[in-house]
């Protein structure tokens, strides 16, 4: 009988923000001078005392620092947006599984979902990046990925191609000149479901990073269940084989109470 198991610790540590970078309108990256030992696609739990604690993807990672990128969309992210250099917030993690790292890859990102894919893009050899957002002001990391093979779409045509990422993906896979073998995706679930279906049609492997309401981040509270999977520990990244069996993917999610509702209703609350 070993007892090192009960030494396990998951409690937020207050960390000082070393740098704040404005990425887009209402989108900021918060940096910490701390090495976060994590893999592409993993996330941390961010605690803002008196407000809330939420999962955030690690969006920059080096030996010296890491960051997460937040988009103001609600009470928590609006408060995060007010934080300045030297402010302290609580961090615990990293949590979750990670993307496989395979070349001949295509990365399909929607909105701030790009932040969950960014440390993966940093590790891939010349992936084809398809990145879409509502409009120009919602685009992030344009400078960061200037030298990357990236196709940008906007719903309103204010930057890049007018249209959707899935249109570009369909086009790219049609003759598959790029010899794409795997597609990584993160963004609105409706988009990811389409990406998954397009990949199925072309018999190409897909990995999607899903989002559900989370509390613990370590698989105990059961809030983030998707079918029989626990999003925070079995995921957040699921591959084609798993997604095929997850009937709730693209259709249902559970509210904070545990009640199962349509994805649309879920997004109107969380």
């Amino acid at each position, binding site marked *: 009988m070993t007892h090192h198991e*009960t030494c396990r610790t998951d409690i937020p540590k207050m960390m000082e923000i070393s740098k704040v970078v404005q990425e887009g309108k209402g989108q900021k990256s918060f940096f910490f001078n701390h090495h976060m030992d994590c893999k592409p696609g993993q996330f941390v739990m961010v605690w803002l005392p008196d407000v809330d604690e939420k999962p955030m993807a690690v969006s920059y990672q080096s030996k010296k620092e890491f960051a997460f990128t937040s988009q103001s969309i609600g009470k928590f992210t609006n408060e995060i947006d007010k934080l300045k250099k030297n402010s302290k917030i609580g961090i615990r993690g990293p949590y979750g599984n990670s993307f496989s790292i395979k070349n001949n890859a295509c990365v399909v990102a929607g909105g701030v979902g790009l932040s969950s894919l960014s440390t993966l893009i940093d590790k891939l050899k010349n992936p084809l990046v398809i990145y879409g957002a509502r409009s120009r002001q919602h685009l992030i990391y344009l400078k960061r990925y200037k030298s990357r093979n990236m196709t940008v779409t906007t719903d309103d045509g204010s930057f890049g191609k007018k249209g959707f990422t899935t249109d570009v993906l369909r086009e790219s896979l049609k003759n598959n000149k790029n010899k794409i073998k795997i597609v990584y995706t993160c963004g609105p679930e409706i988009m990811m479901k389409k990406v998954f279906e397009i990949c199925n049609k072309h018999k190409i492997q897909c990995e999607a990073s899903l989002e559900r309401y989370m509390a613990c981040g370590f698989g105990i509270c059961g809030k983030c269940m998707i079918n029989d999977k626990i999003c925070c520990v079995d995921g957040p990244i699921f591959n084609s084989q798993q997604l095929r069996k997850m009937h709730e993917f693209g259709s249902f999610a559970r509210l904070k109470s545990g009640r199962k509702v349509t994805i649309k209703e879920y997004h109107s609350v969380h």
Partner: protein
Amino acid sequence: MLQTKLCNLNLKNPTILASGILGVTKERIGRIGKAGAGAVTLKSLCHEERQGNSNPTMFAYDGVFLNAVGLPGQGIDSALKDFQRLDNLSVPVIGSIYGYRIEQFDNVAKKMASLKPAMIEVDISCPHLDYGKPYYADAGLTAEVTKAVKKNSGKIPVSIKLSPNVYDIKEIAHAAERAGADAITAINTATGMVIDIDAKKPVLANKTGGVSGPALKPIAVRCVYEIYETVKIPIIGTGGVTYGKDAIEIIMAGAAAVGIGTGIYYRGIGIFKKVCDEMEMWMKKNKIKNLNEIRGCAHK
């Protein structure tokens, strides 16, 4: 070797998933059964949907696990649709219920009973102010709740889950037994607080929460020991059981079966099988053929 009789249930082993941990979906219950649990307890349900507290709601350090989830739940009506029935799953399922007022316990018990769980567990630890005191802290109120649930549960055995946050847990257990309870689940978490000295604030959004994990075990063992001396009905000993030796210890204090909750955090869902293997190993070494030989032996 580990077969366990609990009221009218025959369990393949004494380990039971405690309420509030996982067990949310029907699909998940099967997985926990396959992982080796003798029975599975659902998250507590009440008459209405509850969102629970804001985060942080749980964290752990140094063998202490603290949570204040605030009894989130989809509500019994939504659960009826979600589960449909509980008697056709691969493992016995215990339905956990609570209410704010006695009438609500009535109602929720009746609905839970219609799902045909193997047992109904009553969480009387929910603090509410209608009676000035929470149910768990008062022998009279505990008896009233027990009667209300028994009246609506038919032949399904009822276990009352007690809180350690009381002056005399024996008195409460005795009241539950006299009111018709078929079993006692002991214990719920002990109230605690952790303050982050850099944030200068309690870490839990709710400020206080329930301590579980290894830190709770000595309190659970003491409570089970005291209750065993007071009542004749079986006890589901719950609190900090993480290893086979912990299960043996709480059975020696008098537990008929053993609840495991936070242990999953430390050892994963495989904990049920691991604890059973460790118990068998200890039993073989000590030439114990079945658990009845050691149940309550610490009292002799």
